[in-house]
């Protein structure tokens, strides 16, 4: 009888199990989808399309061989972001169209101000979806770079970038009070650099 070892007390096993359960409950997040949000233009044709100056349009074309042409010149994917930033932030307008927050080169042959600047993305029917998404991603990134910059300089007290603030705003856990405080600030930025990204129908590319 001396060799018999005492039984291990398993009474606390349930506690340990619950501890683990609660740990996993808190730490796991259910996977949510994410992606690039876009808004399609409505179907009805505009009867009187506004006249847009050539210098206010930044044309990006992805052809069927997945080559990227920016303003009719070939460009590598990694250079698109900086080219789009340069175009949007140019601020070449004078008088009423001047842009006092732009830090661009104020080139007369580029965009007047970010509100007028339009990025036009065209693609061929043969273009690969993943290349198209990469280009979209870079163009959205250009807007985010500028919005981030202005957000930090306008609201340094928030201690976050525009993208972070936007994420915080759309997080359902954020309190309504904070949301109400954040919304006007986000709207200001969206007005300063409106996302004017047009996706032309490929049929018009003939």
């Amino acid at each position, binding site marked *: 009888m001396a060799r018999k070892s005492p*039984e291990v007390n398993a009474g606390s096993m349930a506690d340990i199990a619950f501890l683990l359960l609660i740990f996993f409950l808190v730490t*796991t997040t259910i996977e949510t989808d*994410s992606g690039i949000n876009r808004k399609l233009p409505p179907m009805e044709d505009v009867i009187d399309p506004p006249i847009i100056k050539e210098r206010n349009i930044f044309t990006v074309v992805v052809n069927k061989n997945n080559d990227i042409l920016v303003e009719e010149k070939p460009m590598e994917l990694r250079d698109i972001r900086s080219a789009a930033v340069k175009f949007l932030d140019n601020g070449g307008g004078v008088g009423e169209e001047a842009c006092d927050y732009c830090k661009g080169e104020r080139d007369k042959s580029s965009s007047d101000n970010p509100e007028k600047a339009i990025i036009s993305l065209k693609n061929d029917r043969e273009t*690969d*979806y993943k290349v198209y998404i990469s280009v979209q*991603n870079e163009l959205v990134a250009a807007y985010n770079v500028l919005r981030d910059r202005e957000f930090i300089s306008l609201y340094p007290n928030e201690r976050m970038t525009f993208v972070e603030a936007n994420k915080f705003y759309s997080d359902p856990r954020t309190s309504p009070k904070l949301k109400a405080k954040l919304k006007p600030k986000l709207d200001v930025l969206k007005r300063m650099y409106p996302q004017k990204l047009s996706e032309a129908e490929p049929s018009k590319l003939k």
Partner: protein
Amino acid sequence: MSKFKKKKDGEQPAINTASLPDIVFMLLFFFMVATVMRDNTLMVTNTLPAADQVQKLDKKDRVIYIYAGKPSERYVKKYGDQPKIQLNDKFSVVSDVGAYILAERATKREELQNVLTTSLKVDGETNMGLISDIKQELRKVNALKINYTTRIGDYTQNK
């Protein structure tokens, strides 16, 4: 009988299994929480392209999904290897998209019907022609909010 008794003395005591239910329940709860329910069985290859300038698609009740890509291996014989659209659980053609969106919209609560987003889950290898056709159909039924659903990652992964 003394022989038999002696043998029993040398045995280890049985392992207490009283906590086994706890462990099993814990595992059960863990998987219940961590699993994502998939409503649709995928019939197309669906390697989403990577992007990093993304916004979350919260609130699943406001999203309509459209899948597209090359048919999966087991469907290649029957449907060929050209990219196809999958709506719910079946392959569809472009002209079905409008009716599908309207039908899905009708199943949602009335206050949500105007705020629905269409999530395009398209394989990276698909041609833009198909996507443009889908977009045209979406415009026809006035489903203008779309989301190009992507993986989160750098664009250089798309090569």
